[in-house]
């Protein structure tokens, strides 16, 4: 079958990051020696992605500000006509650099807020940088760019939701994204500490709905609920290798941020033109369309809508990447999700494992 048109390129410029979020989607380990993409590689990726039909470029990581040539890449993306987004912690950023990025054509900054209370923030990501993040938010608005505040919601910060919404009201971003942690990679390791109880989720949902109704005219509040509680799988990335291209710091072409964990041989963008890889890469072809689906997905009326859910979640929970996503209550392995949900009602104290300092990992990998 011919490949669908991708709309968004997610460029993971580096895995290095000043934060150590307990739900990070970056790999648990970096396997084997490999060479990071250089600026010339990224330039080619941007141009070829544009030619494939991509309209949105998201610069992310790790922390993309730690990539020295971020500015020129933003400039390139913008001159290709791409809508440019920086997904950032805001930590290694001063106003002068942000202004340079704005001048190069950056249009949208998605700024992460981990928590309000310093103690909560340190528990979630190893440090508290809220005061600086609030300054960054102000600069983004002053410099005329669009601002999204992104909060990853988990058991650790869900009680702060009303105050987080109040904070957003003071900042007036274009968007507030309340995205629940997705239990893959680091988040799966920490699932018992991150998954909220049904009651606290119900409260969070009520608070969110009330705020959406009250603030809808001023800014948008988008809320992603945990699929563990939904009983239905989410249409992960709009379907496998359909709308999104993800390129990792080491050049792998993935269909989503988390797919590096799957037992598939993803191609290196340096090995062939992007259009060829997008269309023919066996790893990307693997779960396109519906032919690969197992029951009950194969004969389910929802299969086109949810694309059988998340391949990474299926693999991480069942060991079979082509299994139905256990988040769906119709699937045989749903009991795994139900058991995790039940444990979340009476969690046993356990230590949270923060992501290891990735800078060291990158250096190790280079040596």
């Amino acid at each position, binding site marked *: 079958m011919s490949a669908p*048109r991708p*709309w*968004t390129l997610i460029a993971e410029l580096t895995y290095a990051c000043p934060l150590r979020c307990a739900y990070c989607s970056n790999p648990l380990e970096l396997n084997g020696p490999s060479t990071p993409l250089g600026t010339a590689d990224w330039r080619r990726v941007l141009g070829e992605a544009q030619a494939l*039909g991509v*309209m*949105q470029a*998201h610069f992310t990581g790790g922390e993309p500000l730690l990539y020295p040539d971020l500015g020129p890449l933003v400039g390139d993306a913008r001159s290709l*006509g791409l*809508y440019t*987004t920086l997904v950032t912690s805001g930590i290694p950023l001063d106003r002068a650099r942000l202004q340079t990025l704005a001048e190069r054509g950056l*249009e*949208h900054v*998605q700024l992460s807020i981990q928590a309000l209370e310093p103690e909560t923030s340190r528990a979630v990501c190893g440090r508290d940088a809220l005061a600086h993040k609030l300054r960054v938010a102000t600069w983004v608005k002053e410099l*005329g760019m*669009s601002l*999204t505040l992104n909060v990853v919601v988990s058991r650790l910060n869900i009680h702060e939701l009303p105050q987080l919404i109040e904070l957003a009201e003071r900042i007036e971003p*274009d*968007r507030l994204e309340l995205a629940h942690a997705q239990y893959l990679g680091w988040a799966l390791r920490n699932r018992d500490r991150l998954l909220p109880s049904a009651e606290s989720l119900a409260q969070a949902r009520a608070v969110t709905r009330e705020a959406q109704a009250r603030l809808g*005219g001023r800014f*948008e509040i988008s809320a992603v609920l945990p699929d563990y509680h939904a009983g239905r799988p989410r249409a992960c990335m709009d379907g496998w290798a359909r709308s999104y291209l993800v390129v990792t710091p080491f050049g792998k072409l993935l269909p989503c941020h988390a797919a590096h964990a799957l037992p598939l041989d993803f191609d290196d963008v340096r090995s062939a033109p992007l259009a060829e890889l997008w269309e023919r890469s066996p790893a990307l072809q693997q779960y396109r369309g519906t032919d690969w689906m197992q029951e009950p997905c194969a004969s389910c009326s929802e299969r086109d809508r949810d694309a059988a859910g998340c391949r990474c979640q299926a693999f991480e929970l069942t060991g079979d990447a082509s299994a139905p996503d256990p988040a769906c209550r119709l699937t045989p392995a749903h009991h795994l999700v139900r058991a995790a949900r039940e444990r979340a009602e009476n969690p046993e104290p356990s230590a949270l494992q923060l992501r290891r300092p990735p800078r060291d990992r990158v250096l190790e990998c280079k040596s």
Partner: protein
Amino acid sequence: MSRISAGDRPRLARRARLRLDELSRAHVLLSPERGLVLNEPAAAILRLCADDRTVEQIAQQLATGAPLERVRSDVIELLSELRARRLIEIEAGAA
């Protein structure tokens, strides 16, 4: 939100950008993490949302052969929808 009237001046929101998609030859209204593919009439309206034009001026420019009344109401309908999505801004005209 008040109804959009003929003297109002619509313009693209700062966060929105109109561009031609070379693959489909359609115009796309880009905004953070979204892209709205526009049909020809919608694109024609949006291209005119600039230079302090009023809704009435936009409708007049587009009403070649069609009744102005109907074109004006189509323009207002589209602009209302895009304003609800915060993709355009309206500067109120003199009452």
